[in-house]
């Protein structure tokens, strides 16, 4: 095998232009596949982040109104819970974590000089930021249990609100005239969309909220214990709420338990579909590259018919010739693949440094993409080399020797 590889390298150098063209065809194909798939992956990841809450197993529960009469009680009864009523859920084994959320849309949010800011208030516990997967800018701190116990007047505010009010950490703002210290600012959302105007929210400790307003919580967020499916969790929650507030456990309108699994499925399929389309486009280019290699290999066999004749005359078996041409194709494709992968990484690095639009995300070459490109290349390389190699090995020595090329 080694002397054959040496001969192949020698031959490839001897026919530099032909080898270069074949390698270029493969490089072009590999770069197309990897760069397109990297763009697709970046797009997928950025959008998956936008839907992070939808795509996580965190369940929302929003009390609303009964729609069915139950045990002598009429329909259309408003359902509401106090925080301690919600907290009873924490004792259930199916529930890993709970966050109770208060909300005030019409609170007056102003900066310290009295200028109105377009913010709204959420009273939250120490679990909220983590469960909601909110990222905080550096220097920020989370709302802690200590803040809740002490009724602290601190706020974690949305980045947009901070920008509009020119607020930084350590500044103050007023909520209904009461001063709050800005302890944290959310990080600018990376996705194409943000959920529910969160970039303008003012998060304050839930205890401080209830001190200011005598409201009931508007929603809770629940993380199920390991092994508990969304369906089971929703069923558990509904029966808990139904027994607490005396409504029909089949009344799904009493407490809204949104099920995002179908939407998640749809979005994931859509995003993966876009990625697949990009990958397929690249694979087509790679196939054209492989055709180029096959073409060059056929040309090589035709040009070197006499050489094949000489090799057969001095004792090469048809198998030796077959292996030689398969290896030649293999070496060309391997070089092309290695250069293509390296070049793709460089291109992706440059693209990321250039700064692409936010909605496109940061292209990233995944191991799966490299593996897919490699598998496609191996198959195409074998096909591209096999047929020319078979033609070479089937040559009859005397006919090959009489070739005029």
């Amino acid at each position, binding site marked *: 095998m080694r002397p054959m590889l040496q001969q192949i390298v020698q031959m490839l150098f001897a026919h530099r232009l032909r080898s270069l063209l074949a390698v270029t065809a493969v490089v072009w194909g590999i770069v197309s596949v990897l760069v397109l798939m990297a763009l697709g992956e970046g797009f997928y990841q950025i959008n998956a982040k936008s839907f992070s809450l939808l795509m996580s197993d965190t369940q929302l529960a929003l009390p609303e109104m009964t729609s069915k009469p139950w045990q002598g009680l009429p329909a259309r009864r408003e359902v509401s819970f106090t925080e301690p009523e919600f907290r009873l859920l924490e004792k259930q084994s199916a529930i890993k974590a709970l966050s109770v959320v208060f909300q005030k849309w019409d609170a007056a949010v102003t900066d310290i000089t009295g200028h109105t800011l377009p913010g709204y208030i959420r009273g939250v516990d120490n679990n909220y930021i983590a469960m909601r997967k909110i990222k905080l800018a550096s220097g920020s701190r989370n709302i802690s249990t200590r803040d809740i116990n002490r009724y602290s007047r601190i706020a974690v505010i949305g980045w947009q609100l901070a920008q509009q009010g020119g607020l930084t950490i350590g500044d103050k703002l007023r909520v209904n005239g009461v001063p709050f210290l800005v302890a944290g600012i959310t990080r600018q959302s990376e996705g194409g969309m943000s959920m529910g105007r969160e970039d303008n929210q003012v998060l304050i400790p839930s205890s401080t909220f209830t001190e200011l307003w005598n409201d009931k919580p508007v929603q809770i967020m629940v993380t199920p214990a390991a092994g508990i499916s969304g369906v089971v969790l929703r069923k558990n929650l509904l029966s808990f709420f139904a027994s607490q507030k005396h409504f029909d456990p089949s009344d799904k309108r009493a407490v809204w338990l949104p099920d995002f699994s179908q939407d998640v499925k749809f979005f994931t399929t859509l995003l993966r579909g876009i990625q697949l389309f990009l990958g397929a486009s690249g694979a087509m280019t790679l196939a054209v590259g492989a055709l180029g290699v096959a073409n060059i290999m056929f040309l090589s066999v035709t040009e070197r018919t006499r050489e094949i004749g*000489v090799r057969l005359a001095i004792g090469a*078996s*048809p198998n*030796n010739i077959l292996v030689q041409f398969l290896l030649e194709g293999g070496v060309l494709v391997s070089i092309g693949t290695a250069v293509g992968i390296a070049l793709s990484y460089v291109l992706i690095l440059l693209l990321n440094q250039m700064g692409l639009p936010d909605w496109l995300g940061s292209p990233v070459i995944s191991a799966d993409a490299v593996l897919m490109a490699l598998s496609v290349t191996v198959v195409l390389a074998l096909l591209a080399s096999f047929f020319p190699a078979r033609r070479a090995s089937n040559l009859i020595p*005397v006919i090959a*020797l009489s070739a005029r090329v």
Partner: protein
Amino acid sequence: MSLVQLKDISKHYQSGDEHVYALDGVTLTIKKGEFLSILGPSGSGKSTLMNVLGCLDKPTAGFYQLDDHDVSSFSSKELAAVRNSKIGFVFQSFNLLEYATALENVMLPLVYAGVNLRKRRAKAAELLERVGLGDRMSHKPNQLSGGQKQRVAIARALVNDPQIILADEPTGALDSKSGAEIEALFSELHHEGRTLIVVTHDISLARRTKRIINIKDGKVVDDEILEPSSTIYHRREGD
């Protein structure tokens, strides 16, 4: 002791509407150590005979025994092994690999014989020294003269210590001086006891051999034994 035995060897093929009898019932015996030439005009079938003798082509009919083996029934793979170990070819147009050096060209048959690099290099270098090209080993064919190329080809033909050396018009592409050198080299090889078969239409080259087989229309028409004293014995067909 006979090295080659051909019995009623025929090679027929269709060329357009015409049925061509390139070889038509050739029967021939060649002993070990013979130096003979196959002589005939263009289209006489001498090259076809050489191709059959060299296992480059299979006969349509007949029996071919080489070194006690019935090679007429061999597969492509077996024939490749025979060509590698028992036959050395010298072609009119040298047929060297242009991108390989003289040494690499001579080493090539040993690659297919599975010989290791150290031995390949040593044997090829020894043979290039033997043909007077010890100082041209790393030269590529385009850096060599016609005569030098042919000497590289002869070294390549000898590298596996073959039973027969088959030369097809070996001086055909050379000037007279280089041609004479090659003829002298062949005579030396003959004196070393090697079996040489030269296919040619050049009567003067044929005269340097010890036996001349005349071929015409695919048939052996004359088989002359040339003794050292230049006395010629004729062995007509059927003798």
